[in-house]
């Protein structure tokens, strides 16, 4: 299968690979997927006092599209408020990266990871978790 330019670019030069201190209260961590399925994504956000995502990091075990989806997601998250972040839809990722149908689940994983990270942050800070992600 041929990959789009953008997928190749994110894969070759992934943005924001790394780890945030998950013990900190203002860091939310989302870990989704499973090794047996061939994809695991960990996405982390750090939220400042104004409620804005000041940093985002990821590590992904998966195909090139999964790596690109999570790299793109971290780029999009930085500078967004939590509410704006919640609104990121996997189809936005599909469109931006030109993912073919068989790779849609890689983008779904990224959306799930965003939601899981936000939930972790919310729960840590005494807020109720969002409803179950739609997937």
């Amino acid at each position, binding site marked *: 299968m041929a*990959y789009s330019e953008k997928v190749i670019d994110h894969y070759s030069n992934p943005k924001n690979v790394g780890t945030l201190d998950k013990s900190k209260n203002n860091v939310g961590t989302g870990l989704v997927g499973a090794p047996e399925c*061939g*994809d*695991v994504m960990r996405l982390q956000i750090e939220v400042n006092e104004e409620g804005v995502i000041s940093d985002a990091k990821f590590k992904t075990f*998966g195909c090139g599209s999964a790596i690109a989806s999570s790299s793109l997601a971290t780029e999009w998250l930085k500078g967004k408020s939590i509410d704006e972040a919640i609104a990121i839809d996997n189809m936005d990722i599909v469109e931006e990266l030109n993912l073919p149908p068989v790779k849609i689940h890689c983008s779904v994983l990224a959306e799930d990871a965003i939601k899981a990270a936000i939930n972790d942050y919310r729960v840590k800070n005494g807020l109720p978790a969002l409803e179950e992600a739609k997937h």
Partner: protein
Amino acid sequence: MELKLPIYLDNNATTPMDPRVLETMLPYFTDNFGNAASRNHPFGWAAEEAVDYAREQVANLIGADPKEIIFTSGATEADNLGIKGIFEMYASKGNHIITCTTEHKAVLDTCKHLEKLGAQVTYLEVLPDGMIDLAALENAITDNTILIAIMYGNNEIGVVQPVKEISAIARKHNVLFFTDGTQAVGKIPVDVIADGIDLMAFTAHKMYGPKGIGALYVRRKNPRVKVTAQMDGGGHERSMRSGTLNVPGIVGFGKAAEICKNEMAAEAARLSILRDKLENALLQLEESYLNGHKENRLPHTTNISFKYVEGEGLLMGFNKNIALSSGSACTSASLEPSYVLKALGLGDDLAHSSLRFGLGRFTTEDQVDYTIKAISDTVNKLREMSPLWEMFKEGIDLNSIEWAHH
């Protein structure tokens, strides 16, 4: 000399044609276009003569008599003809077939098809190194068993089964022995007499010949074996496989077989050195594992899992420059990783992390060196990106985590 990219290391999928084979075939597309069954004119005679000669070349490679070679469109068809043909021909003797879980789909799906038609099939599990358990094989034989179908060399892991021992067991119980020799023929010595093979499928495009031509070997003496045709028509190939013969393909198959016979020993020795170099270097990487038996295998094949990186993501790091295949199947065409690796007892995680290397006649040491570097670099890079690698390094047991399966 500058290295030419991309490098082809997927020779178990198909091999490039040897230029000597192409050259031999060319006249049979143009000047010598006759139908080998045309008995009444020189065009037919020339074609028939060419087919007879090629049949001898093919038979020679496996120690058979030319009359025992039935040309087919490839190994898939030969697998079908061999297994279905025996099931039909020997229906009065029994309906039980024994095969194993690491066979090619052409064998497994043929057996599944026969189950719908009343066959009873035993799918033997293999040992963790991919080898057949001979005691389990013998135990599986019943009064109804008509056929044992166990492959010679495996396409994914290269494991070579103890064919002589298997045939001895078959003989002892008066059961026929079929083997899918696709990956072994032309690569290692295969001799139907010494190996005790009753039927064998193989194909030209895995031995530097053309695609679309293969053969079923059907033993004619001790015992005389017969298969029911699965393709009816003009009665070609001793009525076991009708259809106008693919003369250029057969000529190419013959030439390919002759070259393999002459060059096999040197080629196998050269490739096993290169394969070992590649394998040893890649096994130097932390948490990389060889899949399959280390000794009993094809000289040009290796299969390695790189734990904590996913195969498809790994391939993407170099697949513009190196052609390889992966045991991962996270591409929803099939969500299951390689069933062969899983049959060895590998977890899905290791199966997803595997690469299959098939070296070939045109593989050079420079290509191997390039591949070692490219793969090592990509594995290291992806591990820096892998949450699983980080957890492993922190000593976290991945099994202790509750994964969200989807």
